């Protein structure tokens, strides 16, 4: 760039970091602008999580009771009983079937419109068909999981629901409001937990919440209480005045979730809510999501974690290449597509190949992993099967069978 040695007075702000051109020469302004940015925001490192601190873990147990009380302020209903950190698997719980989707044969359709509905939605970016004829429905008060590998169209679907993407064709209704025409009204009624951390890093925890209390138009007289409740939900009351940069990855994720709940949304969209978190922190987030679902908030959650979908979701929609390939309750999907039990055959590669061929000849579906072959739908076998270890079939088996892709 040509440098013009002319005196100038330059006052600039890059991002939210105050930057002043220290030399006042036009030709160097660009470099100053880049250098002035907090390095943490210049790199796409949202998945990189600081180690959870001991206080983070210790605070969890002691603050659960406070969080239960805080939940009472979100959505207008209270949570009875404790919030388990280690959740039972979804299929072990006594849950009512979901009308129109779940097991138990035909169920009368619910008179209430769904929290959201997509009909035949297409969205392409150039030659890439990110969403290809997606049909999706989230009944009120349920948690629906979009399960798919990276690139399956999950995040695009979430963006379609916030009108940050406009569909090429198809219809979208959110809380009875057609999108994108009434997207702003719909966004006022829902909360969004993004996949990528977009917290204001120069602000404190409380300031981040205050900002979104304004953006979500929480009435002035309720704003302080709403922020305090969100702090309790996030278990961050003690860290309210800490800068976001001082938080661990788990704390930041909890703050993102609490931020989405500030205004008591009727629908919450969560885009990969636990991606990049360690197992302990993931369980914390699961407890938080489960408590939210329990108190009646409708949730659409995208994930590529099998266990997450199996534990949290009433309904799982398996997506691949932008379309839904199967929909149902996790246990039902497993029973329908993989059977009750699977047979795991181990051995050297040539033995595995033989076992796979024999099983297929016997009418059994197979799934090849690195060190074994999984035999599924054993009830359909018409011939002898090789020796192996029996194990319960799982959602991962279903996913691989239906999409041909490994996940996780």
């Amino acid at each position: 760039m040509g440098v013009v040695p002319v005196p100038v007075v330059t006052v600039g702000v890059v991002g939210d970091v105050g930057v002043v051109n220290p030399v006042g020469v036009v030709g160097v302004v660009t470099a100053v602008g880049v250098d002035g940015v907090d390095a943490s925001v210049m790199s796409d490192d949202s998945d990189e999580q600081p180690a959870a601190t001991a206080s983070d873990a210790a605070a969890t147990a002691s603050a659960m009771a406070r969080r239960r009380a805080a939940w009472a302020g979100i959505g207008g209903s209270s949570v009875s009983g404790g919030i388990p950190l280690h959740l039972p698997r979804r299929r072990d719980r006594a849950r009512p079937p979901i009308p129109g989707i779940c097991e138990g044969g035909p169920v009368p359709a619910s008179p209430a419109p769904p929290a959201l509905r997509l009909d035949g939605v297409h969205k392409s970016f150039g030659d890439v068909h990110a969403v290809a004829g997606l049909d999706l429905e989230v009944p009120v008060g349920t948690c629906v999981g979009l399960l798919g590998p990276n690139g399956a169209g999950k995040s695009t679907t979430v963006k379609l629901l916030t009108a940050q993407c406009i569909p090429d064709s198809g219809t979208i209704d959110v809380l009875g409001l057609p999108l994108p025409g009434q997207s702003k009204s719909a966004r006022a009624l829902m909360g969004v937990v993004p996949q990528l951390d977009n917290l204001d890093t120069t602000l404190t925890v409380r300031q981040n919440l205050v900002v979104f209390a304004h953006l979500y138009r929480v009435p002035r007289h309720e704003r302080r209480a709403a922020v305090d409740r969100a702090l309790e939900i996030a278990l961050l009351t003690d860290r309210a005045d800490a800068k976001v940069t001082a938080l661990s990855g788990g704390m930041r994720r909890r703050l993102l979730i609490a931020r989405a709940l500030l205004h008591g949304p009727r629908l919450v969209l969560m885009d990969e809510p636990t991606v990049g978190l360690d197992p302990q922190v993931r369980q914390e987030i699961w407890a938080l999501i489960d408590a939210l679902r329990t108190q009646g908030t409708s949730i659409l959650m995208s994930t590529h974690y099998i266990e997450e979908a199996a534990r949290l979701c009433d309904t799982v929609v398996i997506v691949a290449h932008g379309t839904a390939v199967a929909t149902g309750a996790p246990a039902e999907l497993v029973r329908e597509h993989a059977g009750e039990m699977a047979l795991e055959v181990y051995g050297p590669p040539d033995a595995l190949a033989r076992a796979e061929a024999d099983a297929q000849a016997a009418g059994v579906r197979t799934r090849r992993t690195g060190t074994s072959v999984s035999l599924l739908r054993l009830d359909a076998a018409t011939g002898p099967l090789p020796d192996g270890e029996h194990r319960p079939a799982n959602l991962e088996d279903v996913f691989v069978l239906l999409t041909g892709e490994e996940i996780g």
Partner: protein
Amino acid sequence: MSVPAPRRRLHRLEGAAIAGVLVREIINFSSYWRSVTFSSTVEPTIYLLAFGFGFGSLVAKVGGLDYVEYVGTGTVGTAVLFASAFSAMFGTFVKREYQRTYDGILAAPVDTEELVTAEVIWIALRAGVYGTVPLLVAMAFGLDPSWGMLAVPLIGVLTGFGWASFGTLVAALMKSIDSFSYITSIVITPVMLVAGTFFPLDGLPRWAQIAGQLNPLYHCVQLVRHAAFGWEPGPDLAHVGVLAAFGFVMWRLAVWRSEKRLIT
């Protein structure tokens, strides 16, 4: 807890949405205002010392004004230009691409038009305040204060609105922050030089004088000088009109391109 406006259809350019974005900016500003304010004060002091007394010793009067007075009022326009255009270019680009701030805001009940408008208003307000600093520094070196100078922040805000919109437009057009170098060289530098800031346009070639007349910053500088040394109602109304038209056109272009960039 109440749920806001359950079925009310929200409209364009709502005050609540703009206020929400402004609140975010104001709270953020609390974390960096010291460094910006310090530099905005020290820099003009250095430039006025260097050029006011440096060139001032060679050039006694320009346009009937002491050179310090001439530069002191002229650099108001430059300060506004840089405080608005660069803040908008780099700030909005970083918030969009790196901080992902706009993803969060647009997931709330805020539209792109409201987001851009609020950002531009905030940058313009700040530019209006920081634009007065060269004037204050010039006063310390001999510029006589006048009542008309009270209008300088308003002139700065009006000018800053246009240049902040321009910066937002540039940020929405560019895919890489490195590309801003082209804009700096091709647009910002000529605009700054051909604005009557450091020397009058009279001595320039005819085509440069015409270009100067089309330069919004020239109209800002003229307004500031007239505010400081005496209004000229007719021409000043025209200057205001040019700045207002520039601001409106740039604002609409910024909204249009930002929507293209943010809503896919």
